[in-house]
């Protein structure tokens, strides 16, 4: 009779308590059956967003020594059990505190692995961002630019280089999703919609909000259009598309490397 689900996060009720409960030591060494069990837990609970082996995906990589939201083990346990408000990180109420502690120890061990290697020159990438990339037309970075596309100030902390490269080549492929609390999510954060208004005008933009009767669109020029659905002649949703152009042909492979290197270097305030 579950009333609310953890949206689309996979959760599996793990059979028995994991063998060998984690103790409170700050740097427990995981091995053998205990390691296998916590790896299984990680795969079922975390890997969908954080990547197999914690290499990152739509959620941050764990291959970094310091995690801003979880500077201490206790903080990480809290994040696992309660989530991070305003983000897609939901609290895992199906996990016990013991399981959260074991996952914490495992995630810490991932942070000791070598970081992802990023080819390219971030200085040249910065010039591409400011110049021919026209990125600040839509994005904001350390307060500069427009703000309707994702804030890139600390994007290198949140997304790995492989993900960033793919986003530049196929912007519609891995759409960011709206954060919870939508119990029916995940909804794409930038769904492209085309409408024909009552007067026959065509408007194209990304969905800001929608219900059965209303639709708010942001056009490519950043202007907002608040519409009554009943007044529209046509409404077309274009899933898998992005308002962002692909840089696959606009930039050379080296230029893409440079831009990825620049984006991966953006860590925000330390």
């Amino acid at each position, binding site marked *: *009779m*579950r*009333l*609310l*689900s953890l*949206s*689309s*996060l*996979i*959760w*599996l*009720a*793990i*059979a*028995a308590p994991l063998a060998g409960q984690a103790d409170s030591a700050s740097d427990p060494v995981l091995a053998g059956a205990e390691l296998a069990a916590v790896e299984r837990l990680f795969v079922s609970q975390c890997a969908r967003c954080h990547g197999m082996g914690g290499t990152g995906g739509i959620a941050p990589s764990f291959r970094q020594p310091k995690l801003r939201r979880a500077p201490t083990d206790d903080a990480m346990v809290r994040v696992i059990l309660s989530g991070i408000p305003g983000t897609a990180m939901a609290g895992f109420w*199906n996990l016990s505190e013991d399981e959260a502690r074991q996952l914490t120890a495992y995630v810490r061990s991932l942070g000791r692995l070598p970081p992802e290697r990023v080819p390219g020159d971030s200085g040249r990438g910065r010039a591409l961002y400011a110049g021919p990339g026209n990125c600040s037309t839509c994005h904001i970075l350390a307060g500069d630019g427009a703000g309707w596309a994702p804030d890139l100030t600390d994007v290198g902390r949140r997304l790995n280089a492989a993900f960033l490269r793919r986003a530049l080549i196929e912007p519609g492929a891995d759409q960011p*999703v709206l954060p919870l609390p*939508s*119990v*029916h*999510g*995940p*909804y*794409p954060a930038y*769904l492209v919609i085309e409408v024909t208004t009552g007067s026959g005008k065509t408007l194209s933009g990304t969905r800001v*909000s*929608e*219900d*059965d*009767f*209303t639709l708010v669109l942001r056009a490519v020029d950043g202007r907002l259009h608040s519409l009554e659905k*009943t007044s529209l002649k046509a409404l077309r*949703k274009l*899933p898998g598309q992005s308002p962002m152009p692909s840089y696959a042909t606009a930039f050379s492979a080296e230029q893409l490397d440079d831009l990825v290197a620049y984006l991966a270097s953006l860590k925000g305030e330390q």
Partner: protein
Amino acid sequence: MRRTLSAAATLAAAALPLLAQVPDARLRDVRREPANWLTYSGDFGAQRYSPLAQITPANVGSLRPAWVYQATESGAMQASPLVVDGVMYLTEFRGHVVALDARSGRVLWRYQQTLPEKLLTLGFGPTNRGVAVLDSTVFVGTADARLVALDARSGAVRWTAAVADNALGYAITAAPLAFGGLVVIGISGAEAGIRGFLDAYDARTGERRWRFHTIPAPGEPGSETWSGDAWKTGGGSTWVTGSYDPALNVVYWGVGNPGPDWNGDLRPGDNLFTCSLIAIDAATGRLRWHFQYTPHDTHDWDASQIPVLFDGKFKGKPRRFVAMANRNGFYYLLDRVTGEFLLGEPYIRQDWAEGLDPKGRPILRPNTEPTEEGTPLTPNLHGATNWYSPAFSPGTGLLYVASRQMSSRYFKAPVTYEPGRFFMGGGETEFGGDSAQGAVQALDPLSGKARWRFPLFSPPWAGLLATGGGLVFGGTNEGVFFSLDAASGRPLWHFQTGAMIQANPIAYAIGGRQYVAIAAGGTLQVFSLVGSPPGASP
């Protein structure tokens, strides 16, 4: 001081008939007093229909907020209020009860629920869906599995009954059903491996009069559908308020999923009386008949929907019906005297059953069981509908259902029972976002076919109300409270309440003015037409 007191007393005497006396006779004849909303579903037949006809398709466009009650407890309200002679009885999240002046929302009294710090509500929150009223007593179930009787005039406690042990995961979220000196209450907790039951208590004393175990013990009827000790943790919650036929003196109640939810290997057999409708003799608590919608369920498809009672002719023969749009995707019509299956039709696009056999048993498609790798299937665990209410209009003869079209991938995992812990054996991954939708459907209850369909942006969590004015009211996850033409499904009015709606609407009247009420987020919002109602005294 004396002046203040007497002024207050005069005001109360003039304005509020605070002596809420609701004898059984009033509950049996609610259609005589459409101004009130006396039971959870509005009448014993659970039709969620108000005969009030002041608000119509022609004037509903002028419906405006009349007042708002803001809960003091944070957390979304899922309650359906009662209205008795100008007083509204409402429960907040965590089960606090408030009595309000139903004209203005002014608070008359408040019962602050005390819940233990270590509360177990496994698979749901400490929500509460409403109260029951009988004579001058208001009854409320608690998240820690107690039943409390309150004085309707003051909110003071008359008695408390310990229904079950919360440390094992037993909890109460449902509104009780009160009639004939009894308070019938259902239980939640199948995700914790409880053994479910339906209880009846003496309305005066709180003494338990009967208990029907939804999971039979060895030797009891239905026990042949279990093996070993699986019955001890067999689930079978009764977490949504049922209906009652006073002429037959039978209570109809839906029974929830078996435990563990997704791993059926641990409980071979049909697992009666899970995912069934049970017809219980109100005098004795004994089973008259049962009908199992989903034998050996492995997808959490509780039959925890409202059993709607109505009468009519089926194939030329007069019948007394009980209808249920079930969570498993099929609509069922049964004879409520005998339990005979009359018809069943899918009302969403489902893909787990070819159809139903002549007895109403589903004809399963292959490979629909949860697996370790995950099995995609429709509907998802929340089903084609859920706990929120359908509505039946005697005017149109249609059954209105808020339905969910959503799929998911079902997983199976090993599981061992531990007292007071989740006992589910798997999980699901929803196919959510834009791939899922909802609808308000008007079903012809005698054929199960949809007469009209109003699409919803996302699978809803709000119930419906039908009115004598020819309207259907409903709510959306996006916070819109709306009204449709009951005959055609045409949208007529909508209002953004500001929070997800996960509650059932009601209607009532005071001083010739009709009101419609719905809970949204932590508020109860009440609407009426602008201007003076026709014929109302100033």
